[in-house]
């Protein structure tokens, strides 16, 4: 009896607490202060560094408060644009998102390049709707125990050469990157990749397709490489460097050659409530010195080429922008992918499911 009474009372108390929380918890979610700008980034340690090297000094210099929220998400952006209630003012977007559209038209505001100084930013990274801020590289990584020194892979052709380089391969289960990689392995020069010859690339993959571990999430690759489950795989320079930084002596190495450089863009979702402040923050984040400081802390590549001169040699070696300038990387063609993503996703699944 006591037990039952106890649970009855507990249930009642919980119910009351819940009702109160529901009634009052709703308030306070919105704070549309005019002197703020909401930045949406990718979270984690890198957004922490963005706070240190970009937002904190920005707040001090302009008096505009930056609210930074983690984990940007394309579907969420489309949702807020379609609902005409835009919560974010500056978004760190994957390059491919910039040319995409919402149901009601553009996803992004047109940038006012009169208000945004772009000294040092290459023209290729200046889109009417977004401007490049950080560069990354998707590269070939391998387990060093699988390949003794002197017999290590150096190109995507080696990735396909299972005779000379035995061992399990891993690849992202998406057409993006895989198609470029197939063509580079066939010997298509990096400056002649786009527009991609999709069928030619798939044909090249046909021989390997059944032996590849097609992973779906980026954190899988470093983990599978380090455990020796995979001998070679696509991964990102950021993750491999992060892993080597964390785990001294992890048996993993990466190849810059023939990597694919991707760029994160800063963009303003259509209908942002703080457009002016957003442009100010974007301009702030393009500055060469600030990007150099951020790069030193994170090994994220700057978009401002002048920033490369402001970092020491050791840091420069780690930055995708530097290797791109050396001609080792190819830049992903965002416009081509945005235009072809839908049809290619379909073609990809069809190809993949066929035995």
């Amino acid at each position: 009896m006591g037990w039952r009474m106890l649970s009855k009372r507990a249930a009642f108390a919980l119910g009351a607490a819940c009702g109160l929380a529901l009634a009052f918890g709703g308030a306070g979610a919105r704070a549309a202060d005019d002197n703020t700008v909401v930045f949406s980034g990718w979270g984690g340690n890198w957004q922490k560094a963005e706070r240190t090297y970009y937002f904190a000094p920005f707040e001090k210099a302009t008096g505009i408060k930056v609210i930074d929220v983690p984990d940007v998400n394309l579907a969420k952006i489309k949702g807020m644009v379609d609902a005409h209630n835009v919560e974010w003012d500056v978004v760190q977007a994957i390059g491919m998102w910039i040319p995409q559209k919402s149901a009601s038209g553009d996803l992004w505001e047109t940038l006012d390049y009169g208000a945004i100084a772009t000294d040092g930013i290459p023209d290729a990274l200046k889109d009417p709707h977004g401007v490049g801020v950080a560069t990354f590289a998707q590269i070939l990584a391998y387990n060093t125990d699988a390949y003794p020194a002197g017999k290590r892979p150096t190109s995507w052709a080696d990735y396909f050469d299972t005779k000379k380089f035995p061992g399990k391969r891993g690849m992202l289960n998406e057409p993006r990157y895989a198609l470029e990689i197939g063509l580079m392995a066939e010997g298509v020069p990096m400056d002649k990749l786009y527009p991609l010859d999709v069928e030619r690339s798939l044909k090249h993959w046909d021989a390997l397709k059944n032996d590849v571990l097609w992973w779906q999430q980026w954190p899988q690759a470093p983990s599978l490489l380090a455990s020796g489950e995979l001998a070679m795989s696509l991964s990102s320079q950021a993750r491999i460097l992060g892993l080597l930084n964390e785990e001294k002596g992890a048996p993993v190495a990466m190849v810059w050659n023939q990597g694919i450089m991707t760029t994160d863009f800063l963009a303003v979702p259509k209908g942002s409530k703080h457009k002016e402040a957003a442009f100010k923050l974007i301009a702030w984040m393009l500055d060469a010195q600030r990007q150099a400081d951020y790069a030193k802390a994170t090994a994220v590549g700057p978009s401002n080429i002048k920033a490369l001169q402001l970092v020491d040699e050791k840091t420069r070696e780690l930055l995708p922008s530097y290797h791109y300038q050396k001609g080792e990387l190819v830049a992903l063609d965002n416009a081509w992918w945005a235009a072809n993503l839908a049809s290619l996703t379909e073609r990809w699944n069809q190809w993949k499911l066929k035995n």
Partner: protein
Amino acid sequence: MAGYGAGLLLLPGFAFILLFFLVPVGLILAQSLFDPAFSLRFYERIFTGPDYLTVLWISLKIAILTTAISLAASYPVAYMLVVARPAIRSLMLAFILLPFWTNVLIRCYAWMLVLQTKGLVNTLLVGWLHALAAPAPLVFNLTGVIIGMVHYVVPINILVLFSVMKAVDLRLVQAAKGLGANPLRAFLAVFVPLTLPGVRAASMLVLVISLGFFVTPALLGGREETTIAILVNTYFTEVLDWGFGSALAGLLLVFTLAGLSLYFAAQREGAELAAR
């Protein structure tokens, strides 16, 4: 015994579903019919493309296998829960609830480490026991998906079955035994039929969960384990083609709902026939 209060009791639940499911999700799913004028283009694409029906079949295969295996694993355990002494039962419940305390994403990564070629199971079988000459492919294929999915649904399955079995009068089984039936027959002829409503409910729940869940197939599957739920996710979050994603989701929804209501109708008819 239909009380006029029945409609009133249904009101809060269905108002909730109407307001927070049918309206918002319906508006999204309606995008599959407008492009921007009314059009069946998206559905045509599903039925004319050769691969989407394959994907539907793969999804069904995974769901049905998961449901069958999880029922076989859960039923005896639920029964043992009912007959166990309270202290043992608490201990068993603690085990059954264990998986819930680990985030489902981390659980998948853990399964990768257990099942991969250099994982726990293969090290044990190949390295220590020499039971196998070469590591068995246990993950990044259908086997891996089924293991992960069964692991995800078994606690749910056990708990639903347990809550139903608890209501069964065990004295009936005792009585059958007292009348000379052998214990296994008493169990099969008396206890099992009494729990069938629970089995049906639990299996339906598990089947539906397996059809809609995408994290486990995405992480533990390989080249061929592409499900409708995975595709919907891709079209919504990456391709941003909500029209086609909605068509795929709508297809899954309509087919399954139709299947379920036919099933309920058949079940009711069967019950009425039996009552006659």
